[in-house]
């Protein structure tokens, strides 16, 4: 009995001692630190933000574009000296390359979780964003994709999944209607690259075009790594459609448009955001003329901060904006705004603030619906004229 009591009290004393130490220890540690540093500069808080995009492979130019957008935002935030919890926020961008490959996407997602990033901007492709979103959700890390448009991404019920771009139901619907009504196409051929993005947007375009009275005369498939489209295009040539819609990226779309012209196909070539880049025009050459494509959101250079963004981007990186660097920029800003409001860089604390975001970004006003989708559903249609993409019209939006 006595022995028992003794051991219990001993344990209590030990536990108290340990607790006491544990409680006391963190206090003196941070206290002298600010004093030791120069009095003018408060302590810095280092926060890592992950950015995932394919920076190698066929669409490396788009991956680099997203990464540059995020990089620019991080540099801007660091220059602004944002105060959070009494410390200066210092962001560090952790860029990762998912090679546009779903398998690689989950590997780098896990890598970012292990590196304890506070938030992730990405991924670029829907095909990599969707499988990776579960990993971020399980780890409680907010994920904001600047460019994944497949509806499924935000339909999984993950509280951590957001996107600062309209989804394919909005985009595909607008493009499908545009083809059937504004372009007056009675027959349309649809091709997709069998990726989550390409297939998703092509399905929505097909639905909307049919609903608007156009007839889908051919549905063909390729892959995101293919280089030869002559066989499927030849088949489409036999159906002689008024328009061809391709759900895929510019790396395959450009050569496809060119091969279509080589085959003497006169149909209008249409793509969604994946092909709406200067790179497409470079790849398609003279076949780009008259090409129609869409980008979710209002045209960036018509927005207040858009022109300035484009100029600063060009100055900083020496290249033109491809598609989604403004969205990647805004994604970082949305995270920082949420951190400011929560006065914390802890994902658990600032995550609810992301859902409540109301931010005027480069791409326009950003607010999220309950799923994490962007509320504004504006889609802008572009046409290639004389080697440049020019705004035709902006549909929807507030």
């Amino acid at each position, binding site marked *: 009995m006595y022995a028992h009591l003794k051991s219990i009290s001993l344990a209590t004393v030990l536990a108290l001692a340990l607790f006491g130490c544990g409680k006391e220890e963190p206090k003196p540690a941070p206290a002298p630190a600010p004093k030791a540093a120069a009095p003018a500069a408060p302590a810095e808080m280092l926060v890592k933000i992950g950015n995932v995009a394919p920076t190698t492979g066929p669409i490396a130019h788009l991956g680099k574009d997203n990464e540059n957008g995020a990089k620019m935002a991080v540099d801007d935030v660091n220059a602004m000296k944002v105060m959070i919890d009494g410390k200066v926020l210092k962001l560090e961008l952790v860029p990762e390359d998912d090679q546009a490959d779903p398998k690689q996407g989950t590997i780098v997602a896990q890598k970012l979780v292990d590196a304890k990033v506070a938030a992730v901007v990405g991924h670029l492709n829907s095909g990599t964003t969707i499988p990776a979103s579960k990993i971020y959700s399980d780890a409680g890390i907010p994920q904001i994709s600047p460019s994944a448009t497949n509806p499924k991404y935000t339909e999984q019920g993950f509280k951590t999944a957001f996107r600062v771009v309209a989804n394919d139901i909005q985009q595909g619907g607008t493009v499908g209607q545009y083809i059937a009504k504004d372009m007056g196409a009675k027959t349309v051929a649809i091709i997709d690259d069998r990726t989550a993005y390409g297939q998703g947007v092509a399905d929505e375009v097909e639905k909307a075009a049919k609903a608007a009275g156009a007839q889908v005369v051919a549905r063909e498939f390729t892959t995101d790594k293919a280089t030869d489209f002559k066989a*499927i295009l030849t088949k489409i040539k036999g159906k002689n459609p008024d328009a061809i819609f391709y759900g895929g990226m510019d790396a395959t779309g450009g050569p496809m448009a060119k091969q279509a012209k080589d085959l003497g196909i006169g149909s209008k070539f249409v793509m969604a955001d994946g092909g709406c880049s200067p790179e497409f025009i470079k790849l398609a*050459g003279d076949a780009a003329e008259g090409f129609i494509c869409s980008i979710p959101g209002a045209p960036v250079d018509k927005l207040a901060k858009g022109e300035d963004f484009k100029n600063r981007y060009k100055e900083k990186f020496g290249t033109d904006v491809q598609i989604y660097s403004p969205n990647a920029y805004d994604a970082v800003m949305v995270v920082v705004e949420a951190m400011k409001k929560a006065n914390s860089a802890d994902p658990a604390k600032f995550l609810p603030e992301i859902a409540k975001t109301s931010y005027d970004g480069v791409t326009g006003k950003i607010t999220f619906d309950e799923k994490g989708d962007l509320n504004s559903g504006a889609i802008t249609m572009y046409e290639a004229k004389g080697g440049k993409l020019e705004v035709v019209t902006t549909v929807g939006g507030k």
Partner: protein
Amino acid sequence: MDIFLQQIVNGVTLGSIYALVALGYTMVYGIIGLINFAHGEVVMIGALTAFSVIMGILGAGTGLPVGLGVAIGLIAAVAVCSVLAFGIEKVAYRPLRRASRLAPLITAIGMSIVLQNIAMMIWGRNYLRFPELFGTERYVVGGASITSLQIAIVLLAAGVMALLLVMVHKTRLGTAMRATAQNPEVAGLMGININTAISIAFVVGAALAAVAGLMVMTYYQVAYYHMGFILGLKAFTAAVLGGIGNLAGAMLGGLLLGVIEALGAGYIGDLTFGVLGSHYQDVFAFFVLITVLIFRPSGLLGERVGDRA
């Protein structure tokens, strides 16, 4: 009908490229009975070398005409590939010439991986965009559209293959190669340097591969470090289809495979009522390979060197 004709045009263009690459497989197989799986990578190295040289010349503002720049690029690619193939044979295959047949096959696969990685280190993982250097003229024949580039590819391939046939059948070198293929020991006794004959087979095959590499790059306007892998497998299939070891067989096999692929991708959707789509295009080559191996293992024209099968 014009659709059918168009698919034939597509297929013949692709097929003549396959044929050039298939000749490399078939020559090496014919002379030492080895399937040189690194051959596809030689095509890739040829394309990337041509890319660097052509872009270097045209980008440096030397003012050389585009045609001359491409010609220099082609010569450089042929030179690099020839030296490469000579080196591969000497380092990876010659020491194993008396080993079991499996050993050189495995070094060939190893060589292929090594070359891909070397190319990845030199040129990176990105797809290199090859610009359209010559304006494309489009002609319409019987409802099918043919571009000047397609005509150039087919004519160049035909010319190179004709040269090869002349070399193999009309020159002393060709005679030496054929003799080595028939019986290396006796050929050696007759005073033929069989090592030289074998090296020549590798070098000539590599030169053809370099030409094919430039063609593929110009046709699809892109070059990257693993472009040779699938192309190599398809060309190998073409060689087997025609009868590996048989020069005419490789040419026929290449053309046939190109046409089968084009027609297959064009009509598979209709034939399977939409169950299989045109993205199964690449499957056709290997379907053909399996069918040939089951029903006619020696290929359409048969192996020339039967005792090596």
